[in-house]
């Protein structure tokens, strides 16, 4: 499935229904189904949180958020993209490289550090959600930043889950 467009909270519900209704999703065993569902929710939540933070009023270029789920031979590929301020790139890169380098035990330790730090406050994105995705993903998380103008870039992540 593919989606491109702005994401409101109502859109999330629609996208989840769309995902649940695909034959590929319905045909999955429960563990893979839940992993795919969880990573999809975290990806869409991230886009939603970012979209809420970015005012598109004075932008020269606007690129819509996107999310897609693609069936590969024995796996699923989830791709999610959204605009981010260039100022955030350094921190995002740091967080992504960090989760990609850690094994599951180290990820759990990081999860505990982050959940206790952020306890009681809402996540600005790419913190606990990213660690959760890394714990469930079957390969490292691929990512890219494509410059849109001097202030914004398009940020894309790709996550693989085995069937």
């Amino acid at each position, binding site marked *: 499935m593919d989606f491109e467009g702005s994401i409101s909270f109502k859109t999330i*519900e629609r996208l989840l229904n769309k995902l649940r209704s695909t034959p590929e999703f319905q045909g999955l065993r429960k563990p893979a189904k839940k*992993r795919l569902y969880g990573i999809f*929710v975290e990806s869409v939540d991230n886009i939603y949180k970012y979209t809420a933070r970015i005012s598109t009023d004075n932008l020269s270029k606007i690129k819509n958020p996107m999310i897609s789920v693609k069936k590969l031979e024995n796996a699923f590929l989830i791709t999610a993209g959204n605009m981010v301020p260039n100022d955030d790139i350094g921190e995002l890169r740091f967080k992504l490289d960090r989760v990609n380098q850690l094994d599951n035990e180290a990820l759990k330790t990081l999860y505990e550090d982050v*959940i206790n730090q952020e306890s*009681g*406050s809402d996540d600005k994105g790419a913190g606990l959600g990213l660690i959760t995705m890394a714990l469930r993903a079957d390969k490292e998380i691929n990512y890219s930043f494509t410059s849109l103008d001097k202030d914004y870039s398009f940020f894309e992540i790709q996550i693989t889950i085995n069937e």
Partner: protein
Amino acid sequence: MEKLIIEHMLNSPGVILDPEKGKYEFSGESRPENARNFYMPVLEWLEKFAADFSKQDPSNRTIPREFQFNFEYFNSTSAKYILDIFKILSNVHSQGINIQVKWLYEADDEDMLEVGMEMSRMSKLPFEYVKIEV
């Protein structure tokens, strides 16, 4: 103490906190639009529940109170608040109040079992894990 009942929605869990019936339950999916707004009343209720024991007859502490957690799914933002729930319950438990936590998971959902074990470890509160055959 007044009960707190929240009906489950598509994106938020059902909550039953009912001392009179001795029923304490969380169930369903948790990915509310604003996790803070959803969980604050729950955390406040539990804080009050914890504080009330000091006003009650000591025999009240030994009555078993079973808290049942039957989540189908929760997102990472909800996880923080769910851990906060366990931290409060852990505090109550460490004061010698008879709290029992049951963490339900579907037989083929190893991830949910693992998350429960992490929650138990992080909050220093023993859980009983209940496998639901599907």
